[in-house]
């Protein structure tokens, strides 16, 4: 079977349409008590891991980040910035608020004492160092 670029383009389009459909379902008022989605990206280099999460409008004080062995847990609470009574008529309500908690399995054990978290412009980034004894070691091959 032969596939050209267009076959994949139409598949991508179909996938995008389906994603849109599901996104719309999620915006249904019945789902409004669903906690906010906190998508993660995990980045790595030789010495460290960087976990980033896209979540706008958080109070950094509401964040609780913990590391236990190879598991990183991020908890937080996103509260609406509008004052109650401020909203005369609501035209659209798509943003989600409330408590969230997510845990992530890391590829190796990290040093919890050296973890650093930063919240800037709606992006949370947690830097985690790789301990020396978790680093890969090169094994020299000796001639017999």
């Amino acid at each position, binding site marked *: 079977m032969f596939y050209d670029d267009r076959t994949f383009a139409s598949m991508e389009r179909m996938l995008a349409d389906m994603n849109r459909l599901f996104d719309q379902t999620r*915006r249904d008022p019945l789902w409004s008590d669903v906690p906010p989605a906190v998508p*993660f990206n995990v980045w790595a280099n030789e010495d460290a891991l960087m976990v980033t999460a896209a979540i706008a409008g958080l109070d950094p004080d509401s964040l609780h980040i913990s590391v236990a062995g190879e598991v990183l847990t991020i908890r937080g609470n996103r509260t609406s910035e509008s004052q109650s009574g401020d909203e005369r008529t609501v035209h659209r309500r798509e943003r989600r608020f409330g408590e969230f908690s997510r845990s992530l399995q890391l590829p190796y054990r990290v040093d919890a004492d050296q973890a650093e978290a930063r919240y800037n412009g709606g992006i949370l980034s947690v830097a985690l160092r790789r301990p020396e004894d978790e680093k890969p070691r090169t094994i020299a091959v000796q001639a017999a």
Partner: protein
Amino acid sequence: MLFTRNPAKTATEERTVSNEGTQRRRRAPAVDIWEQDHALVVTADLPGCDEASVEITLEKGVLTLRGTPTSDYPEGFTLVYGEYEPAEYVRTFTLPDEIDRSGVSAVVRNGVLTLTLPKAKEVQPRRIAVKAG
């Protein structure tokens, strides 16, 4: 998201990509819109955007929000697991005529855009005093 592209594939693809050269997927940000006596207030989630990377245009009654996150690639790292892609946030609204265009104000804080669109004077509610007959 229920359907994601192969994260491993994305990792290799994105390896050498910088902020400038990224193919960004256009996404509609989630918004709340409410109305006060004197203004319409629009709030939008634009994680990774600050006041420099958000652009708001108002043309012929059409309001367009556009945000391009600047901070979504940590320097010197490779993506190993991905749930969100570099996005360009775009959303367009048609405004009612009765907005005082000169008074529109916008603030970005922690990736949340708050846009205040004051109503024109002639459509603001007025209290009518009732006199004793």
